[in-house]
């Protein structure tokens, strides 16, 4: 299943913020975590992650610092900031609202005691 491009883009910010909030991490690890969390359904083009990270860094939601990987390669680590936590909480509320609305309608459409589908209103 391919997830719509706009949806991928919209969910990128809360996902990244949440993953970074779990603990300091770096680009490749974030992608691995996304794959893990979505069971492989959410596929990003790897290169596109970084402009998003840089945007969040510019907004002050995350903080980057250069460190080294286990084998000594230059690596940029990101950690969440106070404003990042606030943004994450805000995003979470928004997504929960969307999720709740969708849940309700899914339930009404596919529940066993399903009503007859509404007819298109006529303006005669």
């Amino acid at each position, binding site marked *: 299943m391919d997830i719509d491009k706009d949806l991928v883009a919209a969910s990128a910010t809360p996902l990244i913020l949440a993953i970074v909030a779990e603990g300091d991490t*770096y680009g490749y690890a974030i992608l691995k975590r996304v794959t893990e969390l979505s069971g492989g359904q959410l596929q990003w*083009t790897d290169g596109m992650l*970084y*402009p998003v990270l840089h*945007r969040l860094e510019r907004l002050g939601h995350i903080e980057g610092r250069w460190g080294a*990987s286990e084998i000594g*390669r*230059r*690596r*940029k680590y990101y950690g969440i900031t106070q404003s990042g936590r606030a943004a994450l909480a805000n995003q979470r509320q928004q997504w929960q609202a969307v999720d709740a609305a969708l849940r309700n309608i899914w339930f009404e459409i596919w529940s066993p005691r399903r009503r007859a589908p509404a007819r298109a209103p006529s303006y005669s």
Partner: protein
Amino acid sequence: MTQPDTINPLDAPIGQWREYLRRRRTIQSGDVDELEDHLRGHIAALVGAGLAADEAFLVAIKRMGAQDAIANEFAREHSDRLWKQLIVGPEGAEAKRDAAGRREAFVVFGLAAAAALAFKVPALFGIGMYEDPEVMFHLRNVSLIVFPILTGYFVWKRGVDRRLWVWLAASFGVAAVFANGMLICVISECRPLFPFAAGASTEPLLILHLPIALWLIVGIAYAGGRWNDTAVRMNFIRFSGELFIYYVLMALGGGLVTALTAGMFQAIGVSPETLLAEWLVPCGAVGAVLVGAWLVEAKQSVIENMAPVLTRLFTPVFTATLIVFLGTMAWRGGIDIEREVLIVFDALLGLVLALFLYSISARDPAATSGPFDFVLVALLVSALLADTVALAAISGRISEFGFTPNRLAVLGFNLVLLVNLAWSAWLYVEFVRGRRTFAAVERWQTGYLPVYAAWATVVVVVFPPLFGFA
């Protein structure tokens, strides 16, 4: 287990991938490092899962996305970088180049401070800046202070060999002797350093012509020993135009700072006159030459040159003005020449020369002639016509007026420019008709540079004694 060794064969292709990515303006080397870390991490994971290194590389590259797409995403997030390129200094995190850029900045600001202080040295000997003969002393010597230091900058930067820079230094020494009448004060009686009579007209002439003569020495240092190369001379012409524009911009900024400082000090009831007139303005004006030169050097490959842009705008406008002028003159039946009017035509020819020079400096030599070339020809021809009429009108009466130093200098400069523009017009017509290459025009212009310096040297060296320092 994945050993770093197993990835090593990929260093070459990854290096290449880095190189391509690095060429995008919006992706900086820190970003490339970050992406490379990602790529290598992914490759290591794939190799760990059993893929061969080269397969892993291909998969990881594919997952990374097309470079164009990545660059576009980076551009959206970092659109400022398209502008920030204009920040001074060799861009890029290559530590070595950064260090070199910083060192150059230190050298330049050191030289600028040295120039500013050198300009204040006469004050130590009681030669103030604003008393009557002394202001002329400063004006006479300002190019003798700034240009040697600017030359020193290029000697340092280009690594000019010793034989050449000894010659350059000697030329400045000789110029200093002539500009201050040191020889004449040995032979006859006059105040050392102040050989000119009060109100002497040869003194302002010297002040105007000495920088033109000395600019050639700066050019030789700029060329770093390749002065005979047409391309290098052309670069020097470009450099001169850009430096002029930067200097004007810095002067505007300096004027603003000065006005603001004056206002602030007056608000607290302190007169800032000494601070501004004795220090800020002269030191800034002198130091700005060095800083401007450095900016032009640092930015030459980064910013579009401004001089050609301005010439593109003004060449058609000025050509139209000249044609209207010629038409008006023909309709009124010639010009009623005033004696000092020739200086206006000097300015006209100077401007036309500048427009022409900076138009050709930005031209692709290989391109065939286009509409703009016809505008240039029209500009040259109408300027020549206007000047010829003016010269003809004045030459009949020049003996009647008598030869003063001013008239001789103005006439000489007019002829120097006229010869250049006449031959340029001829060469350019030939070029537009496809009979000559564009290189001939460039060769003529760059070959002519020493002529200006030669005429300026004549005015500096010959005029004062010829007219008795009056």
